[in-house]
Every structure is written in structure tokens, then in C-alpha cells.
């Protein structure tokens, strides 16, 4: 018996072709990038055989080493700060009654997602320039602060989702059993919130690690993260070393995003 089928986009003619085009466009360049990171030759376009040489060269390149260390420091700090702030923001927006302007607060927390990044970058550039003139400080904190700020909404989203899905009566039960608000948070809310916090922290880490535009504008002279170093290199000689660094970055990002996905899917046990 054939039943009339509901509309199914997969059954439209040309669907397979369009889908294929999308996948090719999305993944072919990345696959090529990865493949050529193992090129034995100097070119990023002509295959001359398999070799690890560009990974070795990137590993031994002092500039790459410095940039990697800087990237990791910034991403770790930014992820910690953004996650802490995001936990507080998520608690404030889910564990209180709706208050005047709660929609506005929600919007403001997510502001970095909506304002064009280049605008934020220029604003930070000007602002930090003013601070630099006033204080003379040119260290790392500008980048950590800037990264923390734009990572907050990314950390906030999974934490808030987790909080909203949590059974409020657990926290009430804990309060009923003489738990003061802080102890209820530590003993009941946080253990349940944990996967959300971890997911948020990892997402923030990846976002910070990959950032170019804001970093490029907010960094002081001589500071380079991996992405800005690569950007600088692209303006000069391009060797498969860039491919190798990109591949490593890609691997880290993919690993973290997969972990994030698994965490946010994990049920409260």
C-alpha cells in the first residue's frame, strides 16, 4: 500500500546534486589543506610525495612556538574568565523571576554575537590605544580581556541550556533540607551543571584559539597568536608549514567540538 507522503525535501529533484556541491565546497578545500600539509615539496599546490617535514619545521620554528604558547595562555585565561562570568549570568537569568529589563540583559549578554566583529575590533583598538597612552601598559592583558569578553556568549549558551533543563525542585529540596544558597549551588546545582560548564569552557577555548580579527586589532606590537602569525606568513612566502599548523589547529578544534557535542548530549545521570 502506498501512502501519500508528506513533503520531504530529500525527495526533491536536484537535492542530491545541491547537497553534493555544498559538501564539496565545504570540505574539499579543507581536505586539500590537510593533504598538502604532508607534501614533501615546497609548494602548497604541487604534490611531490609524503613527508612530515613541515610538521617538524613548524615544531622547530621559534616564532610558531611563541605564538602557540601565547594562544594557549590567552585561550585558557579567556575560557576560564568567560565561563565563570557565564555561569553567574546564566544563574541570574534562569534562577530569578522575570525582572524589568531581563530581555535587555539577555540581549546584552549575547551582544558579541550580533555586533559585527570588525566593529568590536576597531572599538577595542581605539579604546586600548587610549588606555595604553594613559597607563603605558602594553602586556598580554588586553588580549585576555578582549577574548574573555567575546567568549562569554559562547560559554553562556550551553550553560543556560543546561540550567533551564534542570529540575528546579532539586534545588528547592536542598534548600528545604537546610542548604544555604551557596551550599545548594555547590552541592546540587554545580554537580548537575558540570557538563554544561565544561561544554561552555571548551567552546570558549576553541573560539578564542581561532580568533583573528579582534586579536589582530587588539594586540600590541610583537605579540602574535597562532592565527595572527599565520596571517602574517600568508603575506610573505607560503609553504606547507602553514598547512601543517592549520591542520593541527583544525584537529584541536574538531576534537573540542566533538567533545562539546558529546557533553551537551550527555543526559543528567
Amino acid at each position, binding site marked *: 500500500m502506498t501512502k501519500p507522503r508528506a513533503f520531504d525535501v530529500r525527495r526533491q529533484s536536484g537535492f542530491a546534486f545541491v547537497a553534493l556541491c555544498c559538501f564539496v565546497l565545504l570540505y574539499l578545500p579543507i581536505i586539500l589543506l590537510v593533504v598538502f600539509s604532508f607534501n614533501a615539496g615546497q609548494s602548497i599546490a604541487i604534490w611531490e610525495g609524503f613527508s612530515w617535514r613541515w610538521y617538524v619545521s613548524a615544531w622547530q620554528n621559534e616564532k610558531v612556538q611563541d605564538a602557540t604558547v601565547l594562544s594557549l595562555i590567552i585561550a585558557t585565561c579567556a575560557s576560564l574568565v568567560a565561563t565563570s562570568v557565564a555561569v553567574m549570568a546564566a544563574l541570574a537569568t534562569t534562577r530569578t523571576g522575570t525582572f524589568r529589563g531581563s530581555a535587555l540583559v539577555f540581549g546584552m549578554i549575547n551582544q558579541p554575537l550580533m555586533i559585527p566583529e570588525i566593529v568590536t575590533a576597531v572599538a577595542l583598538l581605539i579604546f586600548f590605544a587610549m588606555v595604553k597612552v594613559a597607563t603605558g601598559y602594553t602586556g598580554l592583558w588586553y588580549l585576555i580581556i578582549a577574548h574573555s569578553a567575546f567568549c562569554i556568549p559562547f560559554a553562556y549558551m550551553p550553560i543556560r541550556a543546561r540550567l533551564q533543563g534542570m*529540575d528546579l*525542585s*532539586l534545588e*528547592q*529540596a*536542598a*534548600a*528545604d*533540607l*537546610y*542548604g*544555604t544558597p551557596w*551550599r*545548594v549551588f555547590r*552541592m*546540587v546545582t554545580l*554537580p*548537575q551543571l558540570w557538563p554544561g560548564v565544561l561544554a561552555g569552557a571548551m567552546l570558549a577555548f576553541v573560539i578564542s584559539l581561532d580568533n583573528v580579527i579582534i586579536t589582530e586589532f587588539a594586540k600590541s606590537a610583537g605579540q602574535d597568536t597562532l592565527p595572527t602569525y599565520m596571517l602574517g606568513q600568508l603575506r610573505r612566502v607560503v609553504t606547507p608549514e602553514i598547512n601543517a599548523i592549520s591542520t593541527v589547529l583544525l584537529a584541536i578544534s574538531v576534537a573540542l567540538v566533538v567533545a562539546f557535542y558529546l557533553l551537551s548530549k550527555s543526559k*543528567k*545521570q
Partner: protein
Amino acid sequence: MPRGESSDGARRMINIVALSKTFGSGATAFTALTDINITIRENEFFTLLGPSGCGKTTLLRSIAGFVDPSSGSLTIHGDDILSKPPYARPVNTVFQNYALFPHMTVAENIGFGLEMLDRPKSEIRSVVGEMLELVQMTEMADRMTSQISGGQQQRVALARALAPKPEVLLLDEPLSALDFKLRKEMQIELKRLQSETGITFVFVTHDQEEALTMSDRIAVMNKGRILQVGGPKDIYDHPAERFVADFIGDTNFVTAEIQSLEGDTALVRLPSGRQIAARSAPDGAVSGPVTIAVRPEHATLEAQGALLDGLLKNIVYFGTDTHYHVMTQDGSTFVIRRQNQPDAAEDHKVGEQVGISFNPGVAQVLRD
């Protein structure tokens, strides 16, 4: 009269005076509780009974501290508790969905309250052991709460709430998720726990049978108001309002007229012209037309010429008892329930003219 003692001498535990709660404001405002006045005594099994949405949970949560009443006062042992946060109130709650902590074992759940009270580890361990024994869960102490059955979860929730030895235990329909047999078992177990621990229980249910079998006293609620407070027998035999009579058990309503009133006994004239003594409701009508309520098992089927006459419309056999549906002169149906005797022949026929009789004092004059 010493502080905390009510006029009848029993020690007062909870005193609720003129408590009201309105949710929201303006056009969406909803009054869930209106002018609640109750006194709950020490060591009492007190039940809040009413249909869904009548405000039972709201009242219970006001006592626990999760709902902030709009007006009125609430004292426990004479202390005003409305100004205190939930964690500072001497009450524990058994939540309807149990709300066990999923990341803790059964024993850790039960010990949680004592841990929050910063009791020494040795004391916590011994009390938890006691509680596990009390609810017969000793073998499951180290299981996670997701690895035990619904009935066991219910017992853990109970043990967790009892462990800190609260002055009052609040129970919000704790048995509603259980199947019939387990429910009956838990009713008996709850009653046993209450008498063993001597803790005052405030129990919420919408099941009239559960309320009648378990409670020392029942408060019947409807639409945010307390309609009647009394012992199960008092409520069943002498419902003060039509809603109470209707909600608890089956009832016949008969229109009548008060002839005279003496104490709580009213002489009423039935539609047939016959007169009989009935119990009057406190603050009820003192004269004029009223409705009286008569339970089906309190009336008997007689020959014509009794208190009320009518036509036997239907005989329904139920095994333990038989229901006779009689259409009285005013067209309403009066149901009589008679306990069946073994092998007794049915001595009535459908279509017969019959009489209905009941003893003086059995009928209850309703307030409205």
C-alpha cells in the same frame, strides 16, 4: 492559656491566620489562596484535601517557604516563619516527584539534611543507618537513586525528609505516582512512621479515600478556600457544604425547610410534609429553605408513606451492596445503598412505589 496552646488544650504546632496568595498582578492576577485560617496540632496527621488546582500545593509551599504569601501570618510554635528563608524553617518536604539528588547515593541523599546542619560525621552515619532501617532500605544504601524503583524512591524521599527530625513534615501527594497495591502499603507505612516518630504530618491529597483512612483531621479545600476542617468521621457524616458532601463519598441532596433550631439540631420539613431532626451546620441558615444531605447507606427502603415517597426506577447490584435509585415527588433521584446478605432474595421490583426513611440526626443541613 499558655502560649502555643489552643482552647481545647492540645499543643499548637502551626497557626495560619488570614493567609492569602495572589499570583501576578493586574489583568493576569490569580488568587490561589483566600483567607486561610488553620491550626494544626502537635503530632497530628493533618490532611489538605481538594480537587486539582484548589491551592493545596500553594498552601504547602507557603509553609515550606517556596511561595511568598501576599498577606496573613504563619507561625510554627509561635515563631513567625514567613520572614525566614526555606533553609531556616523547621520543616521538611517530601516532594511530589521526590526530587532525589541524582548524583548522590541513597545514603548520601538521606544524610544531606544533617550534613547541611553541620552535624558530626558519626552522628550522620548513625542517623542514616536508623532511617534506612525505618524505611527498610538498608541493602540499597549505596545504590544511586536512578537504580531503585518508584516505591523505593518514595521511601528514600521520606527518609531524607525525616532524617533531620523536623518539627513538621510536609507531604505533597507523595503516593500519587504509585500503583494501587504499593499505594495501599505505603499508606499504612506512612501512618506507622508518623506514630513512631511523633512528627506532625501535613499531607496533601486529592484522593478522598486516602484522606479518610489516614488523617487525624482533614481540611477540605476548594477554589483557594478552606471549606471545612474536622475529623474524617465528622467530615463524612456531617459535611457542612454541598461541595464537601459531593466531593467526599456519595450523597443525596434533598430540599427542606427549617422549622426550628436548637443548638446544632434543626427540625426540618421535607417536601413530603413530614418533619425530622437534622444536624445544622455552624454559621448555617437558621430558618427558611435549605438543602440537606443524606448518605446512601444512612437511608433505608420502606413501604410507601415514609419520610419521602417515590418510584423505584432502578436496582443496581454491586456484589457487596445494592443501590436503589428512587425518583422522589420533585423529580430528583435519591440513591439508597444496602449491604447485601448472603442468598437474600430481592424483595423489591423496579416500577414499584416505595418510601425512603432515615433516622433523626442523620441528615445534615448544608450551609449553602
